[in-house]
Each structure stands twice: as C-alpha cells, then as structure tokens.
C-alpha cells in the first residue's frame, strides 16, 4: 500500500509541474502577469513592460454597461478610486475590449471625452477592439480588475467590490477589493482577497 502513497506524492509533483507549464493560458495571482503592447486612446502605443517599477491597475470597462454606470455616473466610486490610486503613484489603465459595433465600443477621442464628462481620471485608456488583451487576461466582465505589482507579478484579479449588484446603494456596504488590495500593497502587506469573483456585464468580444 505504501506504493500508492508514493504514487500520490509523485503525482502531485508532476501535476504541479504541468500547472506551471500551462500558467500562460490564464493569469494566475502570484505569477508574472501577461505582457502586451496595445494602442491607447491618445494615439500612442503602450507596452506593459515599460511600466515595470510601478503598480499597475487594469480595469476592463464599457461605459454603457449598467454596472459600470453604477460605479461611475451614479456614485463616482471608480473615478474616486482612480484619483486615490494616482496619489499613490499607481498607474490606472482602463481597457475597452468591446468589438466594433458592439456595446461600449468607442474611438480614442470619445473614450477621453467620456472620462472627462464622468470625472474619471485614469492614467490611460487601452483600446482593445480586437479583444486580444482581454482574452490574454481572460477578462470576463465590465468592470473586471487586475493589479500588477512593480515586479510585474499579478497581485489581484476579480471584481471591484463584494456586493454583486447594479445598485449604487450597495457601494457603501460593500468591501472594495481594489482599494483594499492597493492599500495592502502600499503597506507592503499581502493582499487579503487576491482572487474574487468579477461581476458585471459580459465583455462584448467580437464574434
């Protein structure tokens, strides 16, 4: 019977090795975040690797999604968070993966104008109309958030907060996971909820 125990140990080891090998398929907290190069709303090209040394937040968004509206127009929750992040020196990037013709798809100028109207202050907006960055991160919802530390390691992925509703009244009652994670990182602590369920509208990928 001893053999079967040894087998299990072997087996666990092999499974872990495989797990590491396939990690590129989906971002895993504690592992290097996938890198990409993408166009931004102001017409430049941004390479994620160029942001090494700074904490980066990726926020998938779609201005027409009611869940995004909840956290922007209705409450100012995310714009406020973006400002707090900026004060901490964090780079906050919105990512728009809506395909052309689908809800939330905008050109660069519109994206910037929308942010101005909503009092939003991200460091930049990534235009990902072909969905390649979205699929690289397996982004599922708007909003869906990822936090990458200065070493390029993924520290957080998941929802904006703990109450999955479209009602702004719930915001004060919810735990804001992103704020919690950013504060923990700033204090050099471990992120308490490193992977949570994202909630919101589905990302409107092409096809």
């Amino acid at each position, binding site marked *: *019977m001893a*053999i*079967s125990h*040894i*087998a*299990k140990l*072997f*087996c666990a080891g*092999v*499974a*872990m090795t*495989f*797990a590491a090998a396939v990690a590129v398929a989906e971002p895993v907290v504690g592992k290097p975040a996938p890198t990409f190069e993408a166009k931004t709303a102001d017409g430049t090209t941004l390479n994620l690797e160029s942001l090494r040394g700074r904490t980066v937040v990726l926020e998938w968004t779609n201005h*027409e*999604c*009611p*869940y995004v509206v909840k956290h922007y127009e209705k409450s100012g929750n995310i714009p406020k968070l973006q400002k707090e992040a900026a004060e901490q020196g964090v780079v906050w990037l919105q990512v728009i993966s809506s395909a052309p013709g*689908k*809800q939330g798809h905008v050109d660069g100028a519109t994206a910037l104008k929308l942010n101005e109207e909503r009092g939003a202050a991200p460091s930049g907006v990534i235009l990902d109309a072909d*969905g390649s960055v979205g*699929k690289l991160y*397996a982004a*599922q*919802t708007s909003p869906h958030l990822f936090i990458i530390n200065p070493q390029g390691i993924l520290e957080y992925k998941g929802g904006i907060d703990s109450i*999955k*509703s*479209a*009602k702004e009244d719930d915001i004060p009652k919810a735990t804001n996971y992103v704020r919690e994670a950013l504060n923990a990182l700033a204090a050099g602590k471990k992120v308490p909820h490193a*992977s949570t*369920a*994202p*909630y*919101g*509208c*589905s*990302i*409107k*990928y*092409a*096809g």
Partner: protein
Amino acid sequence: MLLLSIEVLPNKQNPHRALANNHDMTNRLFNPAGENCASLRFSLFAALSCLLFSGFRRWLFFFFRSRLAACNLAGLSLCILGLPALQSYAADYVATEQVEARLVAGVDAVSPGAEVYLGVHQKIIAHWHTYWLNPGDSGSPTTIAWHLPEGAAASDILWPIPGRSSMGPITNYSYENDVTLLTRIKVPDNVVVGGEFPIKAVVDWLVCEEECIPQQVELDLVLPVVEPGEDLGQGSELVEAALARLPVESPWPVKVFRVSDETLELWLEFPNADPATIRDLWFYPNEWGRLKQSSPQTYEVFPDGIKLQLPAGELIPAVGESLDGVLVLTEQGSSGDMQRGFELVVPVQAAALPGASLSFALALLLALAGGVILNLMPCVFPVLSLKALSLVRHAEHSATHIRNHGLVYTLGVVASFAVLAFILIALKAGGAQIGWGFQFQSPLFVLIAAYLMFAVGLSLSGVFYIGGSLAGAGSGLTQRSGYAGSFFTGVLATVVATPCTAPFMAAALGYALVQPAPKLLAVFLSLGLGLALPFLLLSYWPGLQRWLPRPGIWMERLKQVLAFPMYGAAAWLVWVLVQQAGADAAAIALAGLVLIGFAAWLYSVTRQISTRASLFGSLGAAAAVVIALAGGSALRAGSADVPQIAENWRPYEEAELQQLLANGEPVFLNFTASWCISCLVNEKVALKNESVIREFEEAGVHYLKGDWTNRDPQITTFLSRFGRSGVPLYLYYPPNKDKPVLLPQILTPDIVIGALRANSTAISSSTDFTSGRN
C-alpha cells in the same frame, strides 16, 4: 364592465387577454388562478421599462382597483362584479420591454399554518436571458425580497434547472424564454380566517441579450384565508410546471474525485445507460470559481455509470470539501428531449483509483520500480537466488555468455508479462461487463478484492501455495542448461511473482486497467522489465552480488509477517462493503471468507495424499470458491438503496389491459427501460412516492409496467399508437373509459395524483386527451 387594456406588447400566448370583457370576467370566476387576474398591461411599460412605478401607473391602479380586488376574491367564489374595494390593490403582473413578470401561487387560498408555493414567473423575449443562482462568468442572479404579513417566512428561491449560453469566451448559466422562480412560504398560525393574506415581492433581475439591463418590479398578490383543512385550490399551473423543473435528489450515488489540480471527475453510478439517448450532461456549480464555466465538460458512458470530467476553476474544492450544484441530464425522450436535474452536495474524494491520476510516463516509472521491488518478495527471491544467481556465481562461461543469459532471462520475464497483458486486454474487450470504470465502488468488486487479499494472506501464512505445480513444472524447465533454461527461469519468476503483485502494484495496475490496450501493454512490459532488471544488472556487473542479502529463514519469517497486512486489508474491505451494501453484506462476506479458508486448506491438504485426492480436493476447493463468489451475486441484488417493499405493479400484457378496460377498471400504464435515466427518476421520485402509492391503492388503480429495455415489439406497437418511438410513456385510463389521459414525460407526485383526481369521476376530462386506442 370592460377592463382597460392598452395592448402594445405582442402577447401571442395569451390573445384572449388582449381584450377583457364580461366573458373573460366570467372565466375568472371559475378559473380563479392569480395569473388570470389583473391582466392589465400598459403600453407605457414598453416605453418606460425602467420606470415601472411611475405615478401614472399608480393612478391607473387606483382607478381600477375595485375590479382587481374583486378578481382576487374570485377564489372564494363570492365575487360579485363591481364589489367595492376591500383592501389594497394587487398587481400580480408587470411587464418591462424584455420581461413580463407575474406573481403566482400554487394555491387559490391559504390557511393558518399552511406551507404554500409562490412563484415569480418571467416571460422573457427571444434571445434574452435572466440568470441562475450562479450566473457564470458575468451577470447577476434574480433576487426576490418578500414583504409578507408578520410571522410568515419565505424560503430562498428554489431554482429550476438552468441552461447555459455562451458568447465568445464567456459562458453564463441562465434562463431563456420563460422561468418560474418558486419560493416556499410558511403562513403563520395566527392569520385570521376569512381575512386576506397580502403578498408583495420586490424582484430585481438582470436581463441580457448581449447588452444587459438591470430591472426591478414590484408584484402584489392577495390570497384569502380559509379554515385549516379546507381545500386550498389548484392555484396556478405555472407552479406545478415549475415544480417539475426543480432538481431532485439523485436516486443514484454520485461521487466526485479530485483527480488533479485542474480536473474533478464526477461519477453518476447509473448502470446500463445508453450513450445514444444521452444528449447532454452538465454540472452547474452553485458557487463561482469551482469550475471553469467556459471549458467543456465531457462525459463517457461505462457499463456501470457515467463519468463527467469537470475542468476546475480558481476555487477548486479540496478533498473533503463539498461540491454543491446541479447535474443536468438531457435525454432523448419519447416526445422530445427530457431534462432532469439532480441536486448534489458531494464531498470531494481523492482520486478513485490510486493510479487513476497518474501520467503515462509516471505509471511506467512506477511499474518499473514496482517490478524491482517484486524481486525482494518471498515468492520471487528464492527462484532468483537458487537458480539464477547460481548461474552468475558459478559462471564458467565468458562474460558475454552470462550477459546473453541475462538478456534471455529478461526476455522470458517480459514475454510472460506481455501474455498477462494480452489476457487482460482480451478480457476487457470480450466482456465490457468488467466495467473497470467503477470497480472500487462496486460491492461485488470489493468482495472479490477481500477474498483475494485473504487468499494471498493464507498463502503467505503457508496454508497453501499458489501455483506449486506450475512452479514445479517450471523448475523442471529451469534445470535445463542453456538459454532455454534462462528463458524459463524468467517465465517462472513471473508466474511466482503474480500472487505477490496485488498489494504492491495497485497504482500501476489501477492505472493500466482503465487505459487503452497499448498503454496497458506498456505498463505491463515496464513491470516485467523492473522484475528482470536486478538480474540483468547482475549479469552485466557480477560484482554487485555482494550487495545482495543472503537467502535464509528470514525470508520465510518475512513472508509470514506479510500475511497480516493482507488479513488487515481483507478486514478493511469487509468494512467498506458493509458501508456500501448494508449489514447483510457482512454475513455474506464473512461466510465467503470461511469458504475461501476451507478451499485453501482442502486444496493444500489433499495434494499431500494422492493424485486422485488432489483432484477431488481441487474440485472441492473450486466449488467452495464458486459458492463464495455466488454469495457476491446475492449481495448485488440485495444491495438496493431502498428497502424492498411489496411492488404495486404488474408487468404489462396487452390481453390483461384489454380485460381490465373491458371491466371499466382504472389503469395506470408506465412504459420504461432500464437504460432510460429519466424513466427511473420518475419512478423513484413520483411513482414510488408514498402518497402516489396510497392514491393508487385508494383509487383501486391497476398499475401496469411495460419494460422496453430489450425493445419488446409488443410494446413498440403500443407506443407507436401514441405516436411514440420510445420511452417514457405514462397513460392513465380513468374508470369506465377506454381513452387514456396522457401524462407528461417528467413526473412529480402532484402531477400523477392530479391526473388521477382530475379524472376520477366519469364527468371529467378536459385534460390532455390523446388519440384513443384502436
């Protein structure tokens, strides 16, 4: 007397509601279900989908509330048109642009202390969906906040079987077209009989096509309160239909194994499933993160069950944690596909077989290592030491010659293992009934394993020797000098090693047995190579000999000591068996062990007397083993989960049916097959339900069952009369009728009892008639 109805929303299903007139109101008096009442709808809803509670709507309700109240009172059959308003109005129907919502009840009235079902019915326009408990990758489940009279309690939503929809890489668990979300309500004991029971539900949902709209509606319903014991009425048909869509407890054991960090394996132990009739099998986890929603779940049908591979998500449950959710099976029925949901709360177990989770390369490696270890077993070591080692030790030949002997010996071992592998492959191919899928869950297998462990123990204790004559014959061959001798030494080593493999090779064998033939062969060859390896090495480097332990009495002691873990394993397996098949299994297993012990002794003792005695002894021993195994078949039959009750059905015979109908007897017909999962669920959930059995008894119903497992042509003809080409088919012939009532494919106790009661008198019969018998 017209109810205002400004109809803009197309509602093809309910055209009669477009204009309500006196006739309609009359209907309501006799069909007092909530759904027929208050069918006001407003074009405004279409325009103001998110502003449902505008002042205008309030005003309209105020204006018409007297009629609405009258309508709700219709349940009491006391309604007089134009009766003045008694209480607040009730709007049990509200529509948005995408969803028509209706509050319905499973009763027409409540009584103090009663438990009733309420349902929120959503009729969703094409291509849009609302969400299940776990919405999947995005979305949000519907919520209902109940506002009930003080003391009343509402359950959580009872979610019907969900569906799934995928858009690109995102998969959601959702409802399309229409759904009724049920809630169980406990009416407090102190409600006033003769009064009203007002219900308000604030319902929040997210409705999505590709885009999503969160919506909220408020629905009201007022039910009269009647005396306890009084008939509460039929209520809305939507509630009954929704009850049939609720997941049920699985009638078959379900096990979940964590086979790796990425995969869970779910086993539904339903024997004899027909892969051809299964359309889809999907497990919907209750919680986010348990599984990857978007990855496919693949199933495989085995003779003794169905295996479903589940790609694990972020929060894969650990061994011992529970996996909760609904397993939904879509099966081809006799009139379209049938869906059954099984509600599962299953503790996750470690991999079923010690080796099931091994990778191929690792299995080969383990087999090799296991083979090497076999050399130390008392059954093998003497052969090697006495025969083979001497060859090396007293080598008068050249080094090349010795090496060749080593190679030929290896060939002998490996060839023997190849033969073993081919025997197994042939067995697997010949009798798919071996059903390796579930061997460790099958009581019969566990029993045989217990016997085997006990027999190996007896052999190690010296009660008898397995393969003595083979070994004897083998020794003769091995005496030969030359390469033939070496080859047969290899064969002999394999033969004598076989009884020792059971406890040591579990992992590699467990793996090999569920693999396709080439992999199985590879594992066995690897095992053989492992067994041959030490001798092969010795033949190449004779200097290694001094590292070997010398044979001696210690080996006999070791062998005897090793018997006790075997007895222990047998005892443990008997315990497992009792868990699986009940206390009777202990008696069967222990009696079987006694028989095995007797067989071993008889076999051994008669061999020392004479050839003839030996023959009788062998036959007697074989008979004892057969009896012990026969006990296993009794075990299987008796291991049914439900206590055996007297059956209340007889097999269907056309002649008997005709006779019964001619006598005007009520008859219930059930056409089923052992591979039809939904048929058997219907039996367990509805037809074997106590209240149904009682109803059959009280109504004197003759219950006939037609088993179509082997496609009986008589039954095929009968089915074709009802336009069916398969099972299930449920028919009820009320007394003195030769036209049957057709029941739906998915049964609940209420559906069966309802069909019996609705048709128990000769007058009735508006329900679902089919073309009659010819």
